[in-house]
């Protein structure tokens, strides 16, 4: 069947996990795969996964998972090297696919941020922005989520082991809500919910817990962000609340970023 598993005499494919600016949550999702973790461990050679193993092999790697965003000059270079060493490079999680929560610095004054947190900013060597991996190197596949869904992560690894192109839904969270029988919190309670413009993958988690979706999985393909913000503004949601809603873990994703910026500009002119 052409699966890697079947070709007994071939060496096991090498898996590497690299981390950039992140919280480790996406890597942890792999350790959280529990039973599957053992099977993955059998199917691949874990060649570089610092959080899980002291066994470190040099590249090239067959599959590289990259967590985290680019925030330092050093990392900007390191990712180039990682790319060179990787046959298939997959980014996992909002940090890697959109810059993560730390991309909020892109709207702030970097120096002032440094001063607010560190007494000696001069010891630091960081960039003024937090950017997605795909802004720096070519990425073969992006797995969304903050954190990624561990089922999807295992599925992705399986897909690659079996030489399948990974395919995940690009539709809205709303489908998952309805499929799981969750009642829409936007319609029944007027709670602002990003579900209609956020990519599925979490299973409609937040609405199932009576709160609005806050966009962990980033924008859907062709997300109509202004369509949603238009409705919310018409229904008395102030821009001061709407802008931060769009600026969460996927603040750096283009559709969220652009609409957030547009609203913020309008807000500024209104204030003047």
């Amino acid at each position, binding site marked *: 069947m052409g699966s890697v598993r079947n070709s007994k005499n071939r060496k096991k494919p090498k898996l590497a996990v690299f*981390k950039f*600016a*992140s*919280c*480790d*949550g*996406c890597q*942890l*999702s792999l*350790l*959280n795969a*529990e*039973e599957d*973790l*053992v099977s993955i*461990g059998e199917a691949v050679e*874990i060649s570089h*996964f*610092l*959080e*899980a*193993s*002291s*066994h*470190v092999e040099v590249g090239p790697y067959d599959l590289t998972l990259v967590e985290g965003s680019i*925030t*330092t000059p*050093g*990392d900007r270079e390191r990712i180039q090297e990682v790319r060179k060493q990787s046959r298939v490079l997959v980014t996992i999680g909002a940090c890697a696919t959109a810059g993560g*929560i*730390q991309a*909020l*610095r892109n709207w*702030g004054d970097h120096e*002032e*941020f*440094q001063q*607010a*947190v*560190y*007494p*000696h900013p001069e*010891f*630091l060597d*960081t960039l003024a922005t*937090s950017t997605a991996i795909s802004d720096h190197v070519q990425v073969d596949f992006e797995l969304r989520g903050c*954190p990624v869904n561990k089922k999807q992560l295992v599925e992705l690894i399986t897909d690659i082991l079996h030489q399948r192109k990974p395919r995940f839904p690009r539709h809205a969270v709303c489908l998952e809500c309805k499929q799981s029988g969750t009642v829409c919190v936007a319609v029944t309670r007027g709670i602002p919910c990003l579900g209609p413009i956020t990519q599925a993958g*979490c299973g409609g*988690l*937040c609405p*199932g*817990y*009576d*709160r609005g979706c*806050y966009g*962990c999985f980033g924008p859907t393909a062709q997300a109509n962000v202004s369509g949603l913000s238009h409705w919310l503004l018409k229904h008395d949601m102030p821009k001061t*609340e709407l802008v*931060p809603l769009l600026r*969460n*873990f996927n603040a750096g994703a283009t559709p969220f970023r652009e609409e957030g910026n547009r609203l913020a500009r309008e807000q500024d002119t209104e204030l003047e």
Partner: protein
Amino acid sequence: MSESRSINVKALTRVEGEGALHIRLAGDAIEAVELNIYEPPRYFEALLRGRSVEDVPDITARICGICPVAYQMSSIHAIENALKIRCSPETRSLRRLLYCGEWIESHVLHMHLLHAPDFLGCESGLEMGQSYPDELKRGLRLKKHGNQLLSVLGGRSVHPINSTVGGFYRAPSRQRLQKLIPDFEWGLQAAIEATRWVAGFEFPEFQQDYEMISLSHPDEYPMNEGEIASNKRPAISVDRFEQEFQEYQVPHSTALQACRVKENSSYLVGPLARVNLNRDRLSAAAKRLADELHFETPCTNIFRSIIARGLEVVHAYEEALGILRRAPVLTPAKISYDYHSGEGCAATEAPRGLLYHRYAVDEAGLVEKTQIIPPTSQNQLQIEMDLIRFLPGVLNEDDQQTARDCERLIRSYDPCISCSTHFLKLDIERLES
């Protein structure tokens, strides 16, 4: 003339986040020990400014994917203190239950996948599984329970979504909670077995005279509430934390380190400190087990902290079972509150130790100022101090072995390096004085 020698561990492994260790020696004299955390800074304290208090638990969770509940709990309690919100006893129980889930998940992960391999000469938990398949399987199952509990209460195990200021977004389903009971009954026994297993490891002799710091509460094992206790000094209330402890920056690390303000001295937080200071408040089964294992307290050998972790897992299982059996009903899920300007702080016990947060909020419920002091920054100086004392005993080995031994020592702290970059502004004047 003795040659100068430098030992580098370029990348610490089996720790959460990324860090390195540099040791510089001149002959047998230690010139420098630097725990270098090169985890890039993410400026959480800066990005929280201007956000509404309800956004805070979601954002602070992202400081650390290993202990998001700890960040949520500390920030929620600090904000509730700022807004003078008093939550119901049921909320309190369910929050403890949530925390039990995180302790189980995080401790079991560390015990089985990160730390145990050191004692068994393996490079990873998976490799260890080849010689100890049942132990690994048991560990993974225990870890899964922790995750399941987090998922039922919080929606998912990494960055759960159900905790908020004033309670929970949705009252946890009693039915789903009670479904966990059989698993947890099994887990309690299995956790006892696992602890017996790790207690049988061979530990290096390494006794240190630590100052141990943890929360302490008259009626319960510390998690979400209590005073800050020490084995060396009188207990203080949480709101005095910043007067007694402070953070400062060192050039070799992106993380800040913490120390005692007056004495400039290091201290230890985490499971070993907690068990030492609160042994009599461990659950019955955990206490019995500690006696059975002749776990002497105070225990001052950091390598034995894996046993303390085991005891806490047993405690967490037993406490969780009690709450699951009661399955408190939460009505309403979340209490309503008004915004007003104020300031509040709180400390809770993250799996790795004390986690302190302070917030100033304005009358619209937006954050003005934040201070977050995570456990790993508090342990960092202690780790360096330990290394200085530990090194002479391992220096006659080759560099690789010395490095490996040092790494083992560091690992027994279960340092969470991703957390340790989110450190706080310190008061420069005070530092210089």
